[in-house]
């Protein structure tokens, strides 16, 4: 396989989890200069907040927030038959995907579990651009190295940063800096030039708001972040608010709501299992997933509103009437938009209907919750014709 993967830091990704081995991303100094509180995240030092999670969360819901998500892995695949080669590892219908339109997919394990969730985009030059989770990227890269045929090249774009501009005023602000971007609709991307640099921008994100994700060469990242935060609508936002926003928007987080023990069916990600691929198979876990689709999963991922004000967080238990553990909370917190605790949990399929009362246990205390329809906060994506 021809590949250009290099880890310039020469570090084992496992070792990068230790405090001493934390890596720094292109905007590290930029965040610190703006008062970002840096914490270890996915092996990097990343800003968890600036002025406070609550204020930042509400700012994004009303205006626009700039997130640095450069810890995520940006990969580019090329070579004859790249679509089919990637399809052997995931259930996306890449061959039918429209160029420049990002597609959500799942890197699958043989047992039907999920190795990572990701976005991939076919580009006009025949390559496939992919964004994978920061905490998984080294494992993903090893996986691709092992399972892609030699003729497929893979480039880990470590020389690029990734910014996300999210919120109802994101398009207004970004259009001023990069004219033409507002012509994109949700889940559409294009290349743009900015100060001599080539950017890849897609109208997408992970907050439930309208917004954009911007892949930018690392050397231009700070200048672009400056240009964006110079807009009155835009403030820098930390990963703390990103987590509460994505939870309100019913967007699962890998390593929490999704992992190798959860399947796409129980995670309610059936939309990622494309029809042709379901019928033809040819991706890891196909047999188990088809069986689970027919018989129904044992557990389903649902949204919960928790009574009272105390959040029930990841690791909280779902109990049946006899007090037996029958499920678990995978994400939970206080929802700033709703001003109440919410959670995502896996519950027995029979208890997954909205309106069902659920009993939770956390640190020896019992909490009552109710299954609700997700998303908790309506999505505001800008779709074609809207």
């Amino acid at each position, binding site marked *: 396989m021809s590949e250009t993967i290099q880890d310039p830091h020469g570090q084992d990704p496992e070792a990068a989890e230790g405090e001493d081995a934390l890596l720094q991303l292109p905007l590290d100094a930029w965040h610190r200069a703006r008062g970002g509180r840096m914490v270890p995240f996915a092996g990097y030092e990343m800003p*968890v*907040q600036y002025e*406070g*999670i*609550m*204020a930042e*969360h509400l700012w994004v819901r009303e205006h626009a927030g700039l997130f640095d998500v450069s810890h995520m892995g940006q990969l580019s695949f090329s070579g004859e038959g790249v679509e089919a080669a990637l399809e052997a590892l995931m259930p996306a219908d890449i061959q039918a995907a429209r160029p420049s339109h990002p597609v959500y997919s799942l890197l699958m394990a043989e047992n039907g579990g999920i190795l990572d969730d990701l976005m991939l985009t076919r580009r006009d030059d025949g390559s496939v651009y992919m964004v994978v989770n920061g905490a998984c990227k080294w494992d993903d890269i090893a996986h691709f190295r092992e399972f892609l045929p030699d003729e497929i090249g893979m480039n880990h774009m470590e020389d690029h940063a990734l910014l996300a501009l999210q919120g109802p005023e994101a398009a207004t602000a970004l259009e001023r800096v990069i004219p033409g971007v507002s012509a994109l609709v949700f889940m559409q991307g294009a290349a743009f030039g900015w100060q001599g640099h080539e950017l890849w921008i897609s109208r997408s994100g992970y907050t439930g708001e309208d917004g954009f994700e911007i892949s930018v060469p690392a050397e231009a990242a700070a200048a672009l972040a400056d240009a964006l935060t110079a807009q009155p609508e835009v403030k820098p936002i930390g990963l*703390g608010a990103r*987590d*509460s926003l994505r939870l309100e928007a019913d967007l699962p987080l890998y390593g929490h709501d999704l992992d190798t023990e959860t399947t796409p069916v129980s995670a309610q990600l059936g939309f990622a299992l494309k029809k042709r691929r379901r019928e033809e198979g040819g991706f890891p876990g196909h047999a188990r997933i088809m069986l689970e689709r027919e018989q129904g999963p044992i557990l389903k991922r649902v949204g919960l509103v928790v009574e009272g*004000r*105390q*959040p029930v*967080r990841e690791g909280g238990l779902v109990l049946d009437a006899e007090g037996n553990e029958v499920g678990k909370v995978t994400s939970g*917190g*206080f929802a*700033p938009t709703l001003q109440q*605790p919410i959670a995502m949990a896996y519950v027995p399929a029979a208890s997954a209907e909205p309106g069902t009362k659920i009993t939770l246990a956390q*640190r020896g205390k019992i909490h009552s919750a109710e299954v609700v329809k997700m998303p908790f906060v309506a999505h505001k994506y800008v779709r074609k014709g809207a």
Partner: protein
Amino acid sequence: MSRYFTEDHEWIDVDGDTATVGITDYAQSQLGDIVFVETPDEGKEVSKGDDAAVVESVKAASDVYAPVSGTVIEGNEALADNPALVNEDPEGEGWFFKLTLSDPSELESLMNDSAYQDYVSKL
């Protein structure tokens, strides 16, 4: 009245054999937006270092330890309706609970204000 501090960022105001406990301004600034506080019930016996209260920010739950041993005489009911009081006035209206000291000599191991400020400045 004397005020003492712990390395876990609790403060304790001592007046005779009763004391008021809360978390410091430094602690609330580290926690961020506080959305829930669970205070101990009246009559609860706590030993120095026991979990005595829970404070939850948007992001995480944290235990608050009893800085000294004693019997809880009151939890701050105002925090149930307005947990943000801990952010707004951590070393005043945002107190957590009051207790009757069972062993005042335990206070000797705590820091005074200047020692605590010195401790925080090195974190």
